[in-house]
């Protein structure tokens, strides 16, 4: 019954939302470059300045200027009551932040990596995500949980897991995964202003990368919509859907594919929950082939959900089976060569795209 409802909703939304061309692409010729780190820092700075209810909480966010220097300078600007260094008590301080959010203040909780959020996951799911529902709308939780997610370089199994699928399976949470600086700024600002719990998954290896930003992005009221993906590269032969760092890999794979005459469309998901099913489906209906890319473990992952969505709604449009690229189904090894084998590389994406186009794979 709900499937039919969804089908109808999808039909309606496909009609309503035109094939998305990001308005901002027309500004992308602007020269300014901004790193993700600066993007996040400026977003936090502006939101804290605009609303005194916003405060930061986490390990090393204050005097250490942030474990990855994302919160640099904020302690000096806003003082220790609004930039709180916590003891190492994930479960405790996450619960404290959730309790504070019940009363309308807006905490931004930093996890040093999302691996540590497992110690606090009870509060993220049970006291944050479910509370608006359990209290029947009386108590909303305007909280943001942010931090680096996914594999870094050589940090071993316990520091490398991607949590997008875990959090995205839970109703009541919004899960965002930015790729570029524009994404980082716009989505973080939207997340902080949002009245619901948001899990904001960053990527440590992207922190230092620069991206071009237009003047519109630098404006202090810039916000991106939650739940809307972005087409990073228009194409017509195969759709490649990815999030976070894998978007960069997908774009590189698209360049390689172009030399072989395959015109790939790259979708930057931006929002894992709610997933922009209508845009992905519209793209697949156009190209008829899909490759999903993620760094996380394959089973029950984001790619699996996208695949199911396509099969449910656009099955007749598929010309080839969906290709799902994910990290290896093993805890992340330490050795550099094994680590390289355990995460998707650009060649894997190129090979998968060629498979969907029934080109021979060398």
């Amino acid at each position, binding site marked *: 019954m709900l499937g039919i409802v969804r089908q109808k909703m999808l039909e309606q939304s496909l009609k309503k939302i035109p094939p998305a061309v990001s308005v901002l692409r027309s500004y992308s010729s602007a020269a300014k470059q901004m790193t993700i780190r600066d993007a996040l820092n*400026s977003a936090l*700075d*502006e*939101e804290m*300045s*605009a*609303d*005194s*209810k916003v*405060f930061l909480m986490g390990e090393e966010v204050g005097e250490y200027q942030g474990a990855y220097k994302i919160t640099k300078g904020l302690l000096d600007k806003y003082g220790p009551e*609004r930039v709180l260094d*916590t*003891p190492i*008590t994930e*479960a*405790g*301080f996450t*619960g*404290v932040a*959730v*309790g*504070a*959010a*019940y*009363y*309308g*203040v807006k905490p931004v909780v930093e996890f040093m990596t999302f691996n540590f959020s497992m110690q606090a996951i*009870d*509060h993220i799911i*049970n*006291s944050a995500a479910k*509370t*608006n*529902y*359990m*209290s*029947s*709308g*009386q*108590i909303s*939780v*305007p909280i943001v949980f942010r931090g680096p997610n996914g594999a870094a370089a050589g940090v071993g199994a316990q520091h490398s897991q991607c949590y997008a699928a875990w959090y995205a399976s839970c109703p*009541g949470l*919004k899960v965002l995964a930015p790729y570029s600086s524009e994404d980082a700024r*716009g989505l973080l600002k*939207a997340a902080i*202003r*949002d*009245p*619901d719990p948001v899990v904001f998954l960053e990527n440590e290896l992207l922190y230092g990368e620069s991206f071009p930003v237009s003047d519109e992005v630098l404006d*202090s*009221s*810039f*916000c*991106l*919509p*939650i*739940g*809307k993906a972005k087409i990073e590269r228009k194409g017509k032969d195969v759709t490649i859907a990815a999030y976070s760092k894998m978007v960069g890999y997908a774009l590189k794979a698209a360049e390689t594919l172009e030399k072989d005459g395959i015109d790939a469309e790259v979708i930057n998901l931006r929002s894992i929950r*709610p997933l922009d099913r209508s845009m992905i489906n519209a793209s697949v209906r156009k190209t008829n082939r899909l490759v999903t890319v993620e760094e996380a473990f394959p089973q029950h992952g984001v790619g699996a959900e996208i695949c199911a969505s396509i099969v449910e709604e656009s099955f007749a449009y598929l010309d080839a089976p969906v290709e799902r690229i994910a990290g290896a189904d093993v805890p992340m090894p330490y050795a550099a060569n094994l680590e390289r084998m355990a995460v998707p590389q650009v060649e894997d994406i190129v090979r998968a795209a060629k498979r969907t186009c029934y080109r021979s794979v060398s």
Partner: protein
Amino acid sequence: MNSASCAAKISTQPFSLNPTSLTSHDNPLVFPKPTSLFLGSTRKLRLSSSSKLNLHRRSGTVVAVSDVVKQKKSKSTPSLLITKEEGLELYEDMILGRAFEDMCAQMYYRGKMFGFVHLYNGQEAVSTGFIKLLKQQDSVVSTYRDHVHALSKGVPARAVMSELFGKTTGCCRGQGGSMHMFSREHNLLGGFAFIGEGIPVATGAAFTSKYKREILKEADCDHVTLAFFGDGTCNNGQFFECLNMAALWKLPIVFVVENNLWAIGMSHLRATSDPQIYKKGPAFGMPGIHVDGMDVLKVREVAKEAIGRARRGEGPTLVECETYRFRGHSLADPDELRDPAEKAYYAARDPITALKKYLIENSLASEADLKAIDKKIDEVVEDAVDFADESPVPSRSQLLENVFADPKGFGIGPDGRYRCEDPKFTEGTAHV
């Protein structure tokens, strides 16, 4: 005066301001042999371990809260602790709690209520003693044993009963249930099924109270938070994490331990290396008090001091209330492990009977007054059941409501446009 040194002064006298008129079970000499009581299946364990520990537990060694209270003690004359109005209010609240829970049991066995139902019979003194001292803006965070906390805080009996029946007129429109009572109006922040989950949430509410006063400059925001939880929770990591943070940041919170000695079938003594929970307060730099939780007047005196401390900005307090639940852990618990002698011992200390005796002996109320209250409460509870029975079940469309505060969960506002396009959403003075 630093709280650590004050906490170290252990008084061997029971913490009682008016020893003559209250049913006194503080005096260790009057107390029946500890080994044969309150231990149930752990009797063998008890007899073999040192009885010194036992006596310590039962002798009511107490940590004085502050000099103010010690002064009060020395100056106390055998005057009454409460006025007639207060006495009747306390009595009515406890009777409401008891009658309501008894009715819940009846309704459960008739199939009107389902799932997990945890009843509060026997512990009413703790709820009434603490919550009746709060204002509406103060908040209460509880566990799954939260019906009576909701009632004491002011949630109408009708709303609680409807919620338990799963009807749309319940305090959470049937979406929460027995273990998840929330009320924004009365500042009841739940209702949590996971033990220990409510403690950080309560600490956060207290944090907001301080934040509002100091950062948002809402003058005179002195709201206090009470966190209720049990003996089993005191072995959980989150409890200690929050004692640390609350003392570190001097938050206006009172941690109230309802030590009823049993966590389902696990006796507190089998689960805890040092069963004296109040001692864990001073380890974190806050006072720890032990009080007889079967006596509402004693609880009320301790609560006054602890809540006063929090309101004045002096920081948190840990209060251990020795209490007992007359029924099993939940209505599905056969309750076979507890020694009948232990149950009888505590049944004799029923807080309602004790308060009734106090009121009558001190001529604060007559039998007739109290009977009138009993009758009134019976009617309130009956009315709540009738109301709940007649209320409709939630409509099908309610299933998908309230997942997000943001109506469509897509960052789409009520007018159908993306919120980020709405100038009101993106305005704000950012001086970077």
